[in-house]
């Protein structure tokens, strides 16, 4: 991929044309809105691809950052809908309840947008710095991030007065001054999501072909060697983790105006794992795999998941088993596999992942 950058770049261009011009012309309003929802997950998935596929950090709790963006946006939209009054769901429990302190700044659109960007950066920065500097990695890192997602979902569920609890935040009427019911404005929101997805793809494309991208892969495959070469792997991982958190937050923020509701179920352990499923299916380390996989899984979730929920759970479970067992690099590795079968085999380079494991074993 790094050899011919224009191939990937024209791929992104094609994708942009499809999402930004073809889809709005072809799809009905309902499906366009659904596609917008999948794009939100795809934005988060692109970040997961960066952190997990390229960086080797299995982020199982991206729901946390998805939630930061989503709830920041949802609080602003709720306040915008409520106007000068206290949001309806709060009045339900106590008619005289004042607005909680932390809601107040979200009245400002500027603060909300800044929070959507800065909150995940700060949280992921602190968390990542603490964990990576202490060399917490592998399964520990994965489970800790998942534990955070569980903890946050539980926290939101239990603070029904402040965050709406399990019913979440919904019934938004305005989006930064635009009436959300208007089809033209819904199209605008969709176009913003699609454009953001393209921007995220461009960002990772630039990352992947930069020296940082090489360093990230080196850290994934042989962290000790990177350390011996004089780099600090913790910093490399930290950058990738923060960027992926930021993308999850942006996806979450756009999820709110598109779907119209955010609940703890959308950010908890199950939701975080669903985000991973798309990335694994598409191909974790590829450029387009995570986004396309997330769109596919999102489509399955909203079509099969509602018409045949039992079967969908089995399919999802089997997807994890089959894809990861037999196709660790996802569907995007299939073309290359067939090409290799058609051509005579070139001598195989030593697999760095195995070497890293061997190094690990020598040490333990």
């Amino acid at each position, binding site marked *: 991929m790094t050899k011919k950058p224009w191939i990937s770049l024209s791929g992104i261009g094609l994708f942009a044309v499809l999402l930004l011009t073809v889809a709005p012309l072809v799809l009905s309003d309902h499906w366009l809105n659904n596609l917008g929802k999948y794009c939100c997950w795809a934005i988060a998935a692109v970040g997961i691809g960066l952190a997990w596929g390229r960086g*080797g950090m*299995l982020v199982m709790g991206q729901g946390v950052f998805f939630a930061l963006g989503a709830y920041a946006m949802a609080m602003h939209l709720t306040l915008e809908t409520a106007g000068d009054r206290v949001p309806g769901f709060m009045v339900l429990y106590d008619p005289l309840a004042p607005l909680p302190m932390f809601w107040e700044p979200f009245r400002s659109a500027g603060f909300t947008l800044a929070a959507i960007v800065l909150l995940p950066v700060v949280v992921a920065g602190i968390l990542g710095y*603490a964990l990576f500097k*202490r*060399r*917490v*990695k*592998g*399964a*520990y890192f*994965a*489970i*800790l991030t*998942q*534990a*955070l997602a*569980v*903890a*946050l979902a*539980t*926290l939101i*569920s*239990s603070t029904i007065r402040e965050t709406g609890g399990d019913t979440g935040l919904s019934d938004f009427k305005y989006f930064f001054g635009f009436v959300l019911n208007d089809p033209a404005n819904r199209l605008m929101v969709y176009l913003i999501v699609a454009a953001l997805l393209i921007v995220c793809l461009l960002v990772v494309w630039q990352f992947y072909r930069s020296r940082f991208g090489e360093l990230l892969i080196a850290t994934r495959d042989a962290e*000790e060697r990177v*350390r011996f070469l004089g780099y600090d792997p913790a910093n490399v991982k930290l950058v990738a983790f923060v960027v992926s958190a930021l993308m999850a937050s942006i996806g979450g923020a756009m999820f709110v105006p598109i779907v119209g509701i955010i609940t703890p179920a959308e950010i908890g*352990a199950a939701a975080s*794992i669903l985000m*991973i499923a798309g990335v*694994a299916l598409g191909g974790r380390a590829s450029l387009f795999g995570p986004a396309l996989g997330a769109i596919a899984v999102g489509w399955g979730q909203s079509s099969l998941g509602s018409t045949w929920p*039992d079967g969908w*759970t*089995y399919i*999802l*479970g*089997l*997807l*994890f*088993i089959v894809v*990861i*067992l037999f196709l*660790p690099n996802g569907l995007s590795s299939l073309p290359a596999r067939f090409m290799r079968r058609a051509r005579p085999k070139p001598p195989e380079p030593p697999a760095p*992942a*195995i070497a890293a*494991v061997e190094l*690990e*074993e020598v*040490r*333990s």
Partner: protein
Amino acid sequence: MDALIAPLLNGSAQGALLLLAALGLSLTFGQMGVINMAHGEFLMIGAFAAYLVQQVITASNLSIPVALPVAFVVAGLFGLVLEVTIIRRMYRRPLDTLLVTVGVGLILQQAALQIFPSQGVPVEKPRWLDGQLTVLGYNWPLRQLFTILLATACVAALSAWLKYTSFGRRIRATVHNRDLAETSGISTRTIDRLTFFVGSGLAGVAGVAASLIGGTNSQMGAQYIIPAFLVVAAGGIGQLKGTIVAAWAVGVALAFFAYWTTGSLAQVLAFILVIVFLQVRPQGLFTVRTRSLA
């Protein structure tokens, strides 16, 4: 006094349950470096096995003692099948194993949801667990004491088995140095399978204990897996005593937090506590000193 005794005793029972759930996890993680996310579902299988035993042996006084070994074997067999079919193929990809077992867990949960009533099944408590014990003025339910005794018995049996039998010696050898164990003529593949059977079986036993305390339904496993793993992480890998102390500490902390705040906030606080603790000691409470760089 009550404010101190009640959370302490309740927390100890909760810790014992966590310990039972974490024992098997610690065993398989310590030996094979494999995180089995379906471990919680094995716990669920144990609980449903207890329910099924009660359908055959209706006298609840007798059925629970029978259910314990049955749950051990049934959950163990599920684990064995998982090891033979999937996990052994992914020996060098521990992180991927974690995700594959997430898929296995999803399927097992859904299967349980369809086989059994979705609201769960009642597991009858034996009459000899109905009573209460008065400890310093606090009426302590006997089934909590039973959980603690069961956990103690399992720990004792496991550590004796690891220490005195030849299988146990081979497991310890494999944990310490897989390659050296292999060169000494130990079939590490057989040992892996055995460890997985025993580890999963312990989850089944934990399931029986859990069914006596909470509800028995398809979701019950999911709520144990994360706390159980945090216990393993905080205790240190391959360290029985670390797991014991960590489980007890997390259980008691949960109970005190719940006493001071609410149940759900307690979980959040306990998670944060463990994460902060791992900052101080990333290798867990007790560690085998190695010259490893990690």
